[in-house]
């Protein structure tokens, strides 16, 4: 789960990292008032959970409350990479002398936590690594022992830090690691870390926490804001369906992430466009699950056909068929289905669907391979 900039900053501030003065607003009027409070010169920043908002025009300076209001009118409601901007963060303009970078990540290759810092801030860490490889510094540390002071000292002195900058960096690195471990962050980042006359401030803030650990951090789970996601994805999440919206017209349902991806890939190879990724997961013994998945895919108005690809390792196929039938009975609109059923009692399942198809006039095609299914689905999608 990725937190918004303003949410991450609140957490940073709670742990003693300096942040610019600022407030969140949802209307241009609020933005104007906040800008007045902050002395007029502000930055208005779109709060969206995707990168590149700056280039997309989602971050703008304003030199008066009135200008802030005008800027906010443009930013609020705009769409950045498919995410509608519903909130902005209004912050004081900083007099930035230099921009540094500090980040923390769970390095999955080395299976270790790592702090990364650089004197080259303001650009992506990948870009720094590519353009200034000597200016990227890493501290890998033992997750059991935690980040030791001497490890930070070693890295900072090696990188040539001294004096007050050393002290500020030391402090921020220790706090960032503390935040990471407190909230079980996959990644947290201050970029740029603004060097100002008032000290080091987090000009931007990123904090991605582990979804699997949210049960240990209910205060974070509450921060998840529904407004940002694609509405179909949000609804799926609330229903516990593993769904990703892709924008094509061939709906995909498979049990298993790998199988779903392979199905999408073959649809694409056959010249089609998958509408979504959907992994039903296990538990298909209950027909309700398949019913909910199919009904969900049909909510996407672009979907012209649904390819259901089930390898029933545990479940018997008649339960899957039952779920499909329940969904078709309830569905608001009719779209053709392409069905590949494999596993226990696959014949019974197929028979049930064939009977239903002939009785109710539902358009259901049976296939024996994923390739055949993909070809048929693409053909039906037109």
């Amino acid at each position: 789960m990725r937190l918004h900039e303003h949410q991450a900053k609140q957490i940073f501030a709670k742990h003693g990292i300096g942040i610019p003065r600022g407030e969140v607003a949802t209307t241009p009027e609020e933005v104007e008032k906040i800008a007045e409070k902050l002395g007029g010169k502000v930055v208005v920043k779109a709060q969206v959970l995707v990168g590149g908002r700056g280039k997309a025009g989602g971050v703008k300076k304003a030199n008066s409350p009135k200008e802030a209001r005008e800027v906010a009118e443009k930013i609020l409601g705009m769409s950045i990479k498919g995410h509608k901007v519903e909130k902005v963060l209004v912050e004081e303009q900083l007099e930035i002398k230099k921009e540094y970078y500090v980040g923390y990540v769970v390095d999955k290759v080395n299976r270790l936590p790592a702090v990364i810092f650089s004197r080259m801030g303001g650009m992506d860490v990948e870009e720094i690594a590519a353009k200034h490889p000597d200016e990227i510094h890493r501290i890998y540390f033992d997750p059991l022992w935690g980040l030791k002071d001497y490890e930070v000292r070693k890295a900072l002195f090696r990188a040539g830090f001294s004096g007050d900058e050393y002290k500020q960096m030391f402090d921020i690195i220790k706090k960032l690691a503390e935040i990471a471990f407190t909230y079980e962050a996959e990644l947290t980042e201050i970029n740029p870390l603004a060097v100002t006359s008032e000290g080091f401030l987090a000009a931007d803030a990123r904090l991605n926490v582990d979804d699997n650990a949210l049960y240990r951090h209910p205060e974070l789970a509450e921060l998840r804001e529904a407004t940002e996601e694609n509405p179909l994805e949000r609804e799926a999440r609330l229903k516990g369906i593993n769904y990703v919206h892709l924008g094509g017209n061939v709906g995909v349902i498979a049990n298993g992430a790998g199988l779903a991806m392979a199905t999408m890939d073959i649809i694409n190879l056959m010249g089609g466009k998958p509408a979504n990724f959907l992994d039903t997961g296990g538990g298909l013994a209950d027909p309700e699950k398949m019913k909910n998945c199919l009904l969900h895919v049909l909510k996407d108005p672009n979907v012209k056909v649904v390819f259901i690809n089930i390898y029933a390792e545990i479940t018997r196929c008649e339960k899957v068929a039952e779920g499909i039938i329940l969904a078709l009975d309830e569905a608001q609109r009719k779209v053709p289905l392409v069905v590949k059923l494999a596993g226990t009692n696959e014949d019974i399942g197929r028979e049930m669907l064939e009977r239903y198809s002939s009785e109710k006039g539902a358009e259901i095609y049976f296939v024996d391979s994923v390739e055949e299914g993909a070809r048929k689905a693409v053909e039906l999608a037109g």
Partner: protein
Amino acid sequence: MAILVDENTRVIVQGITGFQGSFQAKRMLDYGTKVVGGVTPGKGGTEVHGVPVFNTVEEAVAETNADTSIIYVPARFATDAIFEAFDAGLRLVVCVTEGIPLYDEMLIHRKLREVKSMLLGPNCPGVISPGKSKVGLLPDRSFMPGNLGVVSRSGTLTYQICENLTKAGIGQSTVVGIGGDPMPGLTFVDVLKMFEEDEETKAVLLVGEIGGTAEEKAAEFIKQMSKPVVAFIAGRTAPPGKRMGHAGAIIEGNMGTAEAKIAALRDAGARVAETLLDVVKGVRGVLG
């Protein structure tokens, strides 16, 4: 031969009295796996499908001489179950549980440095050496004995592929599901090394997917392998930044794309199949 499990493997099921544990214990027994015990704290002294249940792994190992454990325990308790299995000195620990927090997994890897056990998973379907032993939830019908080693990050996709192979008369030495988490215990490289050394295995099929760098690391090792490798990568159409079900299946920045993985594998000499049917052709090609 085969790798990881065979007819001599003695298995205990942690969480055997739970719904999934009990069901899968039965299926493993039906397959012929030597399921010698189960563990559920507080249920010691009872039986499940004729298998004795113990309160602790320590006790189960002492009484049954088990060398392998399979864990069907909810995510909140699975890490402790893994540690208990390590502590009892088991050779192989298979963890099926999905949704173990990332920081727990970091600590599991930290613990692995201190112990001698191997961990398969978490969030994996397990391992089967067809005709010998199955430790996991892989469906029997997809597999038959043979000389192809299979290692995979996904479940049903692998069953589908293996069923196609089996129908085409191509049997498997061992099929290993390393699981969909970003930091699995045994990795592609670990398993490829075992297949390379296994006499029964003549060729290897690697089923990968987007996310992480496991396939790239595998490619580096494949360069040194004497046995032919066929590969399939799922997720070419996945957009960046979206998690495709598996916690590990996500393209972040420029890392983890199917294109990069396919290129690395091809570069290493592996035959990369475009479709599932191509996989069968590819394997037939290398097995001759």
